[in-house]
């Protein structure tokens, strides 16, 4: 479970990047954070990963305060970034092997890695290919494979479908749905309203560091999420 309690981040230059944000992502739930650039989505992820320290409040992973016990907390979370670059001279399996071991998974066989890569939709011929030959979609798939192989109960996704073609994005979303079915708590930051509507159990809209709206899938099924989002954004501009 992922929890943010009154989470606030003000940078040294005075910029308030996140303002008293509170949220909870339950087991088997996908929570999508929507918002414009600079709304505070990535700051939220960075706070959960202890890459920055909160000014106030706390981020909890499986009940562990990330700021107090970062290493312990990181044992329960996987992360997929916007642009998975990885190591271009390594093969997909070598990349997976390295990050699996960093994630505490040792003793995995080649077959385990192959199975994991198949699960995310990577073609067999890509398993032993160097990453420099991979498309962005293939790299993103490998990124999610890295998250899967860690087998952490929580997953943080930062703009995972950005730059993917519709087919690759759809495959990616399918994989995420499977992970939800396995009971993972998933927090996804995205610009992609359509994917958010398609996959999320709850959606939060962020504006100027604040979580200004949270709706469950039941609530926005009959609504036009894009319209709601744009209305919030327009308010932000005015």
């Amino acid at each position, binding site marked *: 479970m992922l929890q943010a309690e009154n989470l606030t981040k003000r940078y040294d230059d005075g910029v308030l990047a996140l303002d008293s944000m509170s949220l909870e992502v339950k087991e088997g739930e996908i929570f999508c954070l929507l918002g414009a650039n600079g709304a505070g989505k990535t700051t939220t992820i*960075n706070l959960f990963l202890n890459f920055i320290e909160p000014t106030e409040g706390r981020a909890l992973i499986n009940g562990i305060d990330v700021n107090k016990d970062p290493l312990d907390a*990181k044992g329960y979370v996987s992360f997929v*970034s916007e642009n998975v*670059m990885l190591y271009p001279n390594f093969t997909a399996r070598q990349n997976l092997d390295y990050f699996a*071991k*960093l994630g505490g998974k040792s003793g995995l066989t080649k077959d385990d890695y192959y199975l994991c890569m198949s699960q995310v939709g990577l073609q067999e011929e890509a398993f032993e290919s160097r990453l420099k030959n991979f498309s962005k979609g293939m790299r993103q798939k490998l990124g999610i494979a890295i998250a899967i192989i860690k087998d952490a109960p929580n997953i943080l996704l930062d703009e995972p479908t950005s730059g993917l073609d519709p087919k690759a994005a759809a495959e990616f979303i399918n994989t995420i749905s499977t992970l939800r079915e396995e009971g993972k708590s998933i927090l996804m930051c995205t610009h992609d309203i359509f994917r958010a509507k398609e996959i999320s159990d709850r959606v939060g809209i962020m504006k100027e560091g604040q979580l200004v709206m949270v709706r469950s899938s039941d609530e926005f099924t009959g609504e036009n999420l894009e319209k709601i989002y744009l209305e919030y954004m327009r308010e932000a501009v005015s």
Partner: protein
Amino acid sequence: MGNIIKKEILEYISSPKFVFTFLLCTILILLSVYTGINSYRAELREYNSAVALNRKNLETQPSYQALAGIGTKINKPPQVLSTIVTGVQDAVGRQASVNIAYDPNLIDSKYNSNPMFAVFGELDLALIIKIVLSLFAILFTYDAIAGERERGTLKLALSNRVPRDKLILGKAVGGFISLMVPFIVPFVMGLIILVIYPDVTLLKDDWMRIGLIFILFLLYLSVFFSLGLFISTRTGSSSTSLFILLFIWVTFIFIIPKGAVIAAREFNPIPSVHEVTAQKDAFLQEIQGSGQGLARDWMKENPGDGTPEYQDRFRAFLEELQQSLTDKIDAQNSALEEEHQAKRRKQQNLAMNLSRLSPASTMIFGAMRLGKTGINEHERFVNSIKTYKPVFTKWANSKMMATLNLSGQGEQPKPDISDMPMHEFKPESLRDSFAKALPDFVIMIMMIIVFLTGSFVSFLRYDVR
């Protein structure tokens, strides 16, 4: 941590820059050893023939007077470790004439005898390590942290239960091992070539010196490696890191060593060699004039009757006069020389100490000291010749006087050089060389500690976003 080290090694080894580095290092190191060996063998041949020629020349002199005037030639033996560290030996003279009149000086440097060598310089291993491998050390590390940040792999790695100190230590160890491969493998190959080549004899002392020089090279590369790591943890982008590192590299390799020499010259000016030589020549003329005057006075006071007794008295007077004049010349020359040397040494020490701010200078000084090809060894050799000069002069004077033929009748006896004192030079012992090179080791170790500590501290607070 084994996983991180393994990944670092694998990442470097599978990269094109490793292949390029390995190939270039192999070519350069082997080429340097090969040219070093050839150069040493040529020097050795020249040395042996010069020694034989000198002996023949001495033996064929018509008289002791002629021998004393021409003098004996002292040749500097080439150092076997010049195959690795050429040092100053190509720039300084290789031969000195020791005669009764002039102060001996080493002349006929390799660059002097063939200026083409000076145009291109010597491609020795120390130079390759100093310039090429230090640059590779930078190219290996400039993106160690900043590059991982740009690729997003740093974020991904640190999203796991991995302590930052462990991550940077693993990267440092793995990266260093990878950098050492393109250095150590060709270095060992070069040593094998050195061993199998004829005319190149390495004694136990030489092997120990090679071992110490090797450690010095490792430390030098570690300085640049840790510097690269440090700058990489201080910058957010690999291009900025590379730019800063190249700036520091140029400063270390070119600006500080040259600047130190210029600064020492400015702060501690000394009279030129020509001024000292002019002073010596003036004194020589003065003393020769006074000698002739004294001889004339003696002859006036002791009118000659040409008897053998008179000749014996005149010979005794001349021997005494000659010796006293030579002693005066030697004393004056050595006083001038000592004063000049003391000033030069002061300037030299200032330049060397200032330039030790650069690891390149530190490494070269240490390597030259251990390779017996440095300024100090040259000075020791020059001093040994200067010590030998009065010994030779005394022997030549006694022989000249013993065979002086005032009547001018009959032939002068041919010189017999079997009892001529020989010049001896004992190179600096390994213990002394190491003791003198120790500060260079310590300076580099200190630099490594500073840069590595800086890297660790910076990385613990590094913004991975």
